[in-house]
């Protein structure tokens, strides 16, 4: 992770760590904080705690998003401090709706000049963001909202399993990970498990991201804690509630960052500090999918 971040996440670049509620790569976010990146444009539909922490650490100057919240809990206090009070540094924002962000990634991934969607008309959103525009249909007198393509410099995608070459499979909430990866110039895949090529090839319909577009593969079990990975661990909800309290206060936030990010060399040390009991408590029971037959045709 240290090498992947130092190679691909350079000051001033745009970075998308995606994963809707699940698969949020806190391990990458913490490494970016530790490497004290500056002036990043952070892109994420739901900034969640990972960007709250990164913005509190001052790595970002611009945020592109569609929903600013601590999911199921409340506000993102550090993002609000940056937006409302320029603490620790000013943060400019650029906002869309969820489908607008999805459409921007899709347009970026498919090299479309824009993505049309039924949204925004009649609202104040196009006033707040002049990149939300309207196009006339050539088949009727209808006009439709459009959003521009989004092509992050770097996308970071957390997954259950990948090969060393980056062929990546996910199950559970698929969010916009595929679209973000195909839209990005560089892709870092972070996986709970590194598997043999044959594991991926045994179920090709489940492959979300091909190694073809992947630049670095990092093996980082529990790299998405305190968010969750379907079938591997549950969300650490106590952490989300704790963060709601800690993040209200700037000093407490900095103490937390010192203790859990700056003074922790890597993810293994973080997990050791967290303790195996916490991790064990997050283990779900088994709910295996059935196997399907692809058939041999020789």
């Amino acid at each position, binding site marked *: 992770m240290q090498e992947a971040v130092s190679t691909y996440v350079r000051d001033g670049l745009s970075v998308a760590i995606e994963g*809707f*509620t*699940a698969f949020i790569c806190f391990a990458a976010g913490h490494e970016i904080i530790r490497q004290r990146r500056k002036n990043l444009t952070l892109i994420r*539909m*739901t900034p969640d705690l990972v960007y709250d922490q990164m913005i509190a650490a001052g790595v970002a100057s611009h945020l592109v*998003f*569609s*929903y*600013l*919240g601590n*999911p*199921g809990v409340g*506000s993102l206090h550090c*993002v*609000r401090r940056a*937006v*409302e009070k320029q603490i620790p540094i000013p943060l400019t924002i650029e*906002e*869309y*709706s*969820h*489908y*607008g962000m*999805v459409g921007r990634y*899709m347009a970026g991934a498919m090299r479309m000049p824009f993505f049309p*969607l*039924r*949204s*925004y*008309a*009649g*609202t*104040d*959103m196009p*006033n*707040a963001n002049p990149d939300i525009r309207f196009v006339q249909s050539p088949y009727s007198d*209808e006009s439709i909202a459009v959003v521009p393509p989004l092509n992050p410099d770097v996308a970071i995608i957390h997954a259950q399993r990948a090969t060393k070459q980056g062929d990546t499979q996910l199950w*559970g*909430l*698929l*969010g*916009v990970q*595929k*679209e973000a990866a195909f839209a990005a110039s560089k892709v870092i895949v972070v996986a709970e498990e590194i598997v043999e090529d044959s594991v991926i090839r045994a179920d090709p319909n489940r492959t979300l991201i091909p190694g073809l577009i992947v630049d670095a593969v990092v093996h980082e079990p529990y790299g998405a804690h305190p968010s*969750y990975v*379907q079938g591997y661990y*549950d*969300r650490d*909800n106590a952490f*989300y509630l704790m963060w709601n309290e800690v993040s209200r206060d700037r000093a407490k936030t900095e103490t937390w960052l010192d203790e859990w990010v700056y003074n922790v060399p890597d993810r293994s040390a973080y997990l050791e500090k967290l303790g195996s009991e916490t991790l064990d408590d997050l283990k*779900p029971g088994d*709910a295996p999918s059935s196997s399907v037959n692809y058939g041999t045709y020789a």
Partner: protein
Amino acid sequence: MTDYSASEMMIVAAARALKNVRTVFVGVGLPNIACNLARYTVAPDLQLIYESGVYGAQPARLPLSIGDPTLVTGATSVVPMADLFGLYLQRGLVDVALLGGAQIDRFGNLNTTVIGDYDTPKTRLPGSGGACEIAINARKVYMIMRLSNRSFVEKLDFLTSPGHLSGGDSRAKQSYPGEGPALVISDMAIFDFDNADHEMQLTSLHPGVTLQEVQASVGWNLRVSAEILETPVPSPEEMNLVRVELDPQGMYR
């Protein structure tokens, strides 16, 4: 008489409003409890759709968020968000969406973006999420919001999600696929928009609540329907489901 709180009355009223509905777009929190209560009572075939990409969820626990892993396991289908928004919502497959907001106006327009000026905000709110396109594309929208004149305002600070816009035919002129707000279910009363102006009007008071109390919690001169009903109190069965099955920790009491 069954013991219940104002919030629980709101949940029960919202669940009852889902009678015979086939698909509902569920938000977290109150809408989630209301939808699950409806599944156990008035709408056993109700299909739950979550913007996180889940269709036909059968959560084994009360989800902590709309992205809770319990929504995935055992669902009918779990799809990329591109498909959820494109093929389900925009395609017109959502019968009812439940929405809330920080501010609502008399035409059911919602603000979830900002209090104060956009560029120099007093309070920065979460933003649209999917609400803007949900309000445009869902066949009908039900709002669940606690009554207060900080929330029910004469003029929104920011229009995030369109309701009936400026009323009358102003929504029809936009040619949105969806019909817009149909109900507002609050902790004190229920409102609909069944008049030519598409203006919010009081139709039912929860037991023990007066018209005067409701008017005092609304930032404009409230329209009242010809006949004001009294919302039936929660039944013992409904309260038992809420307190034992759905919210045993009393988070939404």
